[in-house]
């Protein structure tokens, strides 16, 4: 099945083919291309609703990850026993939220979505940023993914996570 892309919003004009291509490149880098992955693009209203339900935070955000395999150790691949378990889970992209940030920072939407998706996939693979140790581990992984992405595509993307001594501004999971 591969990547399931869903566009449930009408605020941001999205390029579905570009998004799929970028997600597939990230899957290739991480060696997770045999796993299914859902990427659902939503507006502020809907991601706020989901954020409120699952995290009790009544505000829009950039990304929410829903892993299929709970409790994975960061960096350890899931070991599926059945075909149905060849699934990493779903990432909800707050494309309206990301677009507003891009407008403020004059950056490209699809480049930003790649960075945000990489962060979301890390969460699906068990990475967290609750403690400084986790934070550092996740930053390392994200930096690796985007370094490889930049090497393959000639772009210059940076992780959305800041080094741990800087202010932590991530509001999602």
């Amino acid at each position: 099945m591969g990547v399931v892309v869903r566009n449930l919003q009408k605020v941001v004009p999205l390029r579905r083919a570009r998004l799929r291509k970028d997600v597939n490149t990230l899957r290739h880098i991480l060696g997770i291309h045999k796993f299914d992955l859902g990427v659902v693009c939503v507006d502020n209203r809907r991601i706020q609703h989901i954020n409120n339900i699952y995290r009790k935070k009544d505000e829009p955000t950039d990304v929410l990850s829903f892993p299929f395999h709970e409790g994975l150790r960061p960096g350890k691949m899931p070991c599926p026993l059945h075909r149905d378990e060849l699934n990493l889970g779903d990432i909800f992209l707050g494309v309206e939220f990301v677009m507003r940030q891009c407008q403020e920072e004059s950056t490209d939407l699809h480049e930003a979505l790649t960075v945000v998706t990489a962060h979301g996939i890390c969460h699906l693979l068990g990475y967290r940023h609750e403690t400084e140790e986790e934070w550092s581990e996740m930053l390392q992984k994200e930096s690796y993914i985007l370094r490889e992405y930049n090497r393959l595509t000639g772009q210059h993307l940076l992780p959305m996570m800041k080094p741990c001594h800087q202010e932590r501004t991530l509001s999602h999971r």
Partner: protein
Amino acid sequence: MLKSVVRTVGAALRLPTASTSTTRALPLNCPTLCSANAATARTFTRSLWMMNGNGASGYRPKLFTTKVLNPSASCGCGAMHTEGDKAFGEFLFDEIKEEKKIQKSGTLPKISGGWELSMDGTEALLTKRVAGEKITVTFNVNNSILPNFAEEADQGEQKSGEEPEILSTPNFVVEVTKEAVKETLVIDCQFLQDELAHGEEEESDIFGIFEVSFQPEGDTEWKETSYTLTKDSLNDSLYDHMMDFLADRGVDNTFADELMELSTAIEHQQYIKFLEELKTFVKCN
């Protein structure tokens, strides 16, 4: 309340599956129509006939009056006018009044992006020209009401005081013709019902592509021999490129949303027009 039930029935009857199953189920479930009960039915008919007074001598209480069988009014058209017709006409008068009351606007909503609308009965045609291309979108409002509307009304799931919203979600066909090419790319699209039927928790797109083919330009007959890509044979990347192709030509989620609004308004307009024609037909004045 009455209005919503009638509207429900109206919507259900316009759904081919609903009307067909009801019609077919009736003879099997109705014992008086089964041959095994023919003898009983015959005796029963005779008793009724006798009670009616026409077939018996002496005094009998009359069960039926002749009113039902014979016209109770005439208007010179020569057709039948019964008490039932009169009640039907009065009902339609009230129904039309109620429907007009809830009609959002007399004029149809516009679709943004430079689309021109033309109508032929229940079929709508949207056209626009962009940089050497002609893009048309056609849809028909017949059988376009979401089936779940009728179900919800039956089950009483809607909150009290709130009538279920009737949404028209027709299949629509996008045709793209390039001036220099004699062929038209035809893309068959459908609203994805799950999303609309079950609210916000579903995760399907608002609309999707179901078939793609090339057809000769103009109003010539549909060429069955043209290769047709179906939803199942469209791979994910090709599908995404087709969706981007449509979005570049103004057919995106916003368009689909506006088309739904337009189609709902047209369907309602056509429904009221039908009721008015029916009233005239029944009352004949």
